């Protein structure tokens, strides 16, 4: 992951997000991001799933723009082969995105766009069955999960895995028992699991309590991006940050308020990724405001 030094209490701009993305990717792969991205996205369309549920605290457009720029310039992906998506157009619009379902330019659309909708086939993992957005089943070949890190009133943690609730027709059926094992089940649905390439979690401005709706009194700044090809590991690191910010702001651990994040262990059990923080190859790179690296460590804080 990459973390910006300084800049307390401010929104990151597109350049700063780009610094974080580039350095984060470089550290993550230990080599040239160009080769890595080209191998990750050899051909076909790339879907970028945002989290725009709360319009005041969504996946910020400057991050999506920085990622798009990187995919076009570094990975050589055609602009029209990039689809920023959400479950509804309304949510995207409210979060500041410009809708575009045309054959020109970067596409940006909700599942409720005319002609998109959900799959005809059921996908099933665990107790609940779902239809999956056709954006994933038909329109894209690769998926990048681009959530924003925040507290969640049921799941405890809302980051990458929770973000994929927006890919199915019936997310309300997956909220029991702190979303466990349901968050794991959703991420184990074939189109979601098979097309996942990267999770890039926006941990710049974190709502550490009273989520997932927006609460301006519960915001703090971590100024980081979590980048991983392991959706479970990405969320495990996100949880570490969330708990840290909760403690810093006088909030009890999630488990103490009836919201233990149990679904990560369930996800590990079905082979989705690594939930043990000690077994995650964690590399934290700090970047100054000019985009210069200031060292790599395992230290998140």
């Amino acid at each position, binding site marked *: 992951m990459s973390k910006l030094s300084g800049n307390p209490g401010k929104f990151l701009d597109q350049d700063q997000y780009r610094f974080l993305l580039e350095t984060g990717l470089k550290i993550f792969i230990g080599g040239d991001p160009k080769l890595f991205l080209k191998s990750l996205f050899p051909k076909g369309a790339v879907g970028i799933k945002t989290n725009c549920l709360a319009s005041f605290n969504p996946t910020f457009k400057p991050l999506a723009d920085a990622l798009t720029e990187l995919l076009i310039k570094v990975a050589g992906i055609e602009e029209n082969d990039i689809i920023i998506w959400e479950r509804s157009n309304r949510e995207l619009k409210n979060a500041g995105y410009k809708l575009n379902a045309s054959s020109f330019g970067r596409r940006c659309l909700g599942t409720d766009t005319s002609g998109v909708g*959900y799959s005809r086939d059921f996908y099933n993992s665990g*107790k*609940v069955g779902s239809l999956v957005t056709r954006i994933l089943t038909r329109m894209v070949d690769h998926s990048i999960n681009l959530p924003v890190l925040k507290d969640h009133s049921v799941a405890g943690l809302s980051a990458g895995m929770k973000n994929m609730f927006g890919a199915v*027709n019936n997310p*309300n*059926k997956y909220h029991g028992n702190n979303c466990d094992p349901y968050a794991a089940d959703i991420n184990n649905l074939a189109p979601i699991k098979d097309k996942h390439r990267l999770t890039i979690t926006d941990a710049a401005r974190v709502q550490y309590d009273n989520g*997932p*709706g927006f609460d301006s009194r519960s915001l703090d700044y971590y100024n980081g991006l979590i980048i991983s090809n392991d959706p479970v590991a990405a969320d495990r690191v996100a949880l570490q940050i969330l708990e840290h910010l909760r403690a810093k702001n006088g909030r009890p651990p999630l488990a103490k308020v009836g919201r233990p994040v149990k679904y990560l262990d369930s996800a590990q059990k079905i082979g989705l990724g690594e939930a043990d923080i000690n077994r995650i190859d964690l590399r934290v790179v700090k970047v100054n405001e000019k985009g210069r690296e200031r060292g790599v460590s395992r230290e998140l804080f």
Partner: protein
Amino acid sequence: MDRRRFIKCVGCGAAAAAAGSNYWQDVLGGLQNACAFEFAKELSSVEARYYTKLETGGIECGLCPRHCLITDLERGYCGVRENRKDIYYTLVYGLPCALNIDPIEKKPLFHFYPGTTAFSLATAGCNVNCKCCQNWDISQSRPEQTDNIDLPPREIVDICQSRNIPTIAYTYSEPVVFYEYMYDTAELGHKHNIRSVMITGGYIESEPLTDLLGHLDAVKVDLKAIRENYYRDYVDGELKPVLDRLVQIKKSGVWLEIVYLVIPTLNDTDDEFKELARWVKTNLGSDVPVHFSRFHPQYLLRNLPPTPQKTLERAHQISRAEGLEYVYLGNLPGHPAESTYCPGCGKILIERRGYQIYQNNLKGNRCKFCNREIPGRFT
């Protein structure tokens, strides 16, 4: 769905149900002429009933035993009720996604004005998730994912009055989740002598049910099993509240019938049939009709075969032996157990094939052969 398609849907469903009937021709002709339904562009924002605001923020829904705790911008398990800044809204008020004119026998209600019709409607959403659901495409969807028609209670009552449709049926998905819409429609219907029936899984809290029963004429409850583990594993609900609500409905005097969908290997043992019959007889009475219905592979249970006819006949035999007086078999068109027999003289009272009635030997609410009183609403 465009308007033409909608007209076609309404027409086809009803026509298939009653081909060849002059009565239906009249009804259909009238409905098509009157098809001025608007497709809704927005979801509704009518404040929901039976919820409490929590001191810690968020709300607790008190409509069904699930008691969802819901924070801002989140929805309950049903997917059709949403918290917006700690006010809970129903998103489906006046927005049905399925409409049809059905024979009352299709609900099934066999002791409730046989041979009449019901204006049947449903919105998206359900408060359980039965793996055998035959209407999963609407019940397990959110209202954004269905084609909704703008149809406020007043228009439903108007249609029923102008077409001589005596009953409104809240059905197909789970009417509990569109409670406010159902309640207001039923209340208005009663003011204009239009009856209301609820076709439900019975997973509702006691207080809202009590309030609603005052405006209902009949309830059909899908009792999905008589074992708690079935409700846990195949329904994602609980049995106990459903049994409690059955007793509550019976005590209220509103007409009650029960359907039990028999699914091979899941709820089809002799012990379960006995247990069910004994529970019904003890807690509701031997005169409550029980329909054993044939399962067809659907939704998440496509790996199981249809229920063998012999299994259904076994359920029938056991229930009759346990003392239930009105036991029916459903989804077996032409089977003798579709018909009603007089427990007094054994003669056929109402002969049915599918949803059609071939003879009715009731005189008022009595057997015309032996004068025995038959429970139900017939006159």
